[in-house]
């Protein structure tokens, strides 16, 4: 028991890293917390708005709030079970199968079953904690809408006990094929890239549907248009077959309690048994051998490159061959033109419907700049992601400025391709003029480069080279929050000012302190000047004492 508790503590620490951090960054932490709260708040408000309208929908000319709430709650629980299941799948792979601490523990006088149980219990705990943050906000929303009484919370507690088991079951059933797929893709970089990019574009496709729905919401000022007859029918069908989420929804709403508890209880017991038996077997299977089998690569010709070329190729390989990085940069950059097109079309329609005016240039500019910020957030790990190998670079007979320039230049190429492709898409699909396209591209490229420079230098100043991935993620989140805030500030200034100038183009501004004759050319010159100013600031921030900062880089 003592060993179990000791190991459990170790596993728990790995899954829930301590908030203590030597490099306390108040601004970054605060911005990061605000961004998280805003995202959670936005989702909660959206679910509230949908739920409030959905429960008042008439089906067969009858309003039945409890039946509608059941359907919606079932749908939400289904999403949680599936999403949590997939998150758990990755946790299972990394903590139970791939983690290298097994080799260490095997040498210690600890029973294999104790080791397995500690890992299993910590993963289950992680599942419950994550489920808590997903279930509670949803149930609060339904409590506010339906006002069902105190018993609802007892039912919620029961749902909270049962739901994570169902998602753990999904993860357990899928873990073996999942490991095979991951191992297969681990050396098939191009296939992995295509797969990941397709998934990202698929996700954005869904997002564009959501944006289209949002467009309807703005136009009709009512959320009910979202809730079409097809959607209601779909949710009703889902309610019949989405097992065990439908039983959990029944428990939450206190319907057919005996039957629901019986079904959910049996599910829980079966889940526990299956989870325990299969993960135990899986753990034993992988305990003494590495799950991944690496085939020999192809022989290659020796090719000489310039120092910069070699450094850039190294950057490319380290991003392209790491699925996490590939997704964060290449797939997002590849999807950017698609996202820009969707957002531009949506807002263009909204503005022209609402005001009868079109601000193509300002709108395209703002949308491209915002997505350039999103794509280049990856650059906030330009140093950190190298880990200890960043120190190896200190031994190279190459100036620090050149080593860092290779990183900036590599990001610049990817980002520029993405910005140019976005502008080309707008030019080809939205009747955007060539002049506008060229100027938007020029501003977009300058702005992207500024973001890359700031993100890289910020990472150099705060790099944690030997920290655990969770600590690195925490520091990166703060750097990301700061980079996004700064970028958004300048993107909005550029967008708003270009809009302002466009409105007054060819006129004289109203006199506040002094009036200006706004010439047509100002529409382009003002945003160009601000982008150039931002670039100069970022270049200065990036360059000052860069050699010294790189020299200071230690573990």
């Amino acid at each position, binding site marked *: 028991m003592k060993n179990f508790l000791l190991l459990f503590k170790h596993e728990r620490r790995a899954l829930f890293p301590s908030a203590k951090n030597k490099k306390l960054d108040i601004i970054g932490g605060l911005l990061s917390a605000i961004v998280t709260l805003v995202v959670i708040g936005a989702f909660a408000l959206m679910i509230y708005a949908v739920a409030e309208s959905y429960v008042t929908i008439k089906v067969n000319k009858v309003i039945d709030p409890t039946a509608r709430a059941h359907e919606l709650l079932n749908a939400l629980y289904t999403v949680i079970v599936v999403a949590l299941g997939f998150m758990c799948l990755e946790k299972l792979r990394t903590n139970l199968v791939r983690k290298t601490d097994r080799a260490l523990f095997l040498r210690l006088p600890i029973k294999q079953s104790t080791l397995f149980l500690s890992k299993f219990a910590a993963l289950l705990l992680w599942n419950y904690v994550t489920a808590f943050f997903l279930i509670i906000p949803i149930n609060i929303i339904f409590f506010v809408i339906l006002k069902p009484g105190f018993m609802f919370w007892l039912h919620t507690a029961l749902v909270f006990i049962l739901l994570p088991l169902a998602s753990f079951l999904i993860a357990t059933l899928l873990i073996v094929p999942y490991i095979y797929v991951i191992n297969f893709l681990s050396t098939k970089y191009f296939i992995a890239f295509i797969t990941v990019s397709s998934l990202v574009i698929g996700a954005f496709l869904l997002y564009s549907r959501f944006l289209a729905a949002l467009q309807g919401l703005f136009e009709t000022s009512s959320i009910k248009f979202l809730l079409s007859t097809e959607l209601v029918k779909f949710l009703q069908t889902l309610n019949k077959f989405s097992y065990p989420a439908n039983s959990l929804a029944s428990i939450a709403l206190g319907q057919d309690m005996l039957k629901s508890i019986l079904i959910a209880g049996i599910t829980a017991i079966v889940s526990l048994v299956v989870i325990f038996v299969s993960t135990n077997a899986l753990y034993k299977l992988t305990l003494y051998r590495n799950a991944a089998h690496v085939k020999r690569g192809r022989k290659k010709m020796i090719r000489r490159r310039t120092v910069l070329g*070699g*450094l850039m190729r190294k950057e490319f*390989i380290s991003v392209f061959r790491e699925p996490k990085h590939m997704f964060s940069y290449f797939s997002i950059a590849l999807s950017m033109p698609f996202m820009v097109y969707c957002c531009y079309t949506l807002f263009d329609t909204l503005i022209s419907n609402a005001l009868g005016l079109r601000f193509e240039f300002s709108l395209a500019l703002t949308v491209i700049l915002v997505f350039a910020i999103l794509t280049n957030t990856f650059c906030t790990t330009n140093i950190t992601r190298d880990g200890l190998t960043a120190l190896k670079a*200190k031994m190279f*007979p190459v100036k620090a400025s050149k080593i860092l320039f290779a990183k900036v230049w590599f990001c610049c190429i990817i980002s520029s391709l993405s910005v140019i492709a976005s502008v080309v898409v707008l030019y080809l699909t939205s009747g955007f003029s060539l002049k506008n396209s060229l100027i938007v591209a020029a501003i977009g490229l300058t702005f992207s480069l500024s973001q890359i420079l700031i993100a890289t230098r910020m990472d150099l100043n705060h790099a944690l080279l030997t920290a655990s991935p969770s600590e690195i993620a925490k520091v990166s989140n703060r750097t990301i929050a700061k980079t996004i805030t700064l970028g958004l500030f300048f993107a909005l200034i550029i967008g708003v000012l270009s809009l302002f100038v466009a409105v007054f183009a060819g006129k004289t501004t109203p006199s506040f302190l002094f009036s200006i004759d706004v010439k047509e050319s100002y529409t382009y010159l003002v945003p160009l000047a601000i982008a150039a100013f931002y670039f100069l600031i970022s270049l200065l921030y990036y360059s000052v004492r860069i050699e010294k900062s790189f020299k200071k880089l230690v573990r």
Partner: protein
Amino acid sequence: MLLEIKHLYKKYSKKANYAIEDINIVGAPGEIIGILGHNGAGKSTTIKCVTGMHPYEEGSITIAGHDLATDPINAKKNFGYVSDEYTLFEKMTGFEFINFMADVYKVRRRDRKERIKKFQSMLALGDSIYKPISSYSHGMKQKVSFMGALIHDPKVFILDEPMVGLDPHTSNQVKNFFREHSSRGNLVIFSSHNLDVVEKMCDRVYIIDQGQILQELDMAVFKSIGGDLESYFLSMTQRVAKA
């Protein structure tokens, strides 16, 4: 001299004590030098200062006539370094890594081809160099580190605990290579706490303890008077510990 370390001082933080104090080491062409010490004695810190990985507070380091502080690029061109941590670019294959190092050191195509062939055979790497480094064993990573460090045929070859993780055959090959490399007028300098290897291989040995050099031994003279390195090292370090 190919390596001159003069009055080197290093602290890990402003408030901390010196990790190394007044270190003085010289290395001539054709020599094999060992830095001998317990764990935490200051061997790795000294080596990491020499390689430019750690900044230092006082003193000077000159490699092949180039001062590391004022002429770092030329100083770095003249050494190759194998660390005890095998920090390699894991996503590359061994072959790609070696080629990358050759690009960084601007090695000619013909030279890198010759050297890759030579080391591939010497270290018994075979076709494994075409596999990703992330799939390598500890020993394999060590071998690829060797190749990466030697691809530009450095005048000064610096190693931190070089024999750890190597199989007996490779270990023997590496020792032979040390001799061959130094016989061509180069300097090999390595840290170790393996007394046997140091005694057999080195021309000169620096015994380091608590961040300071306790003794510099000329191994030819030491052996001629029938000195035993193990007992000498233990008596030296125990005397300091008692003091």
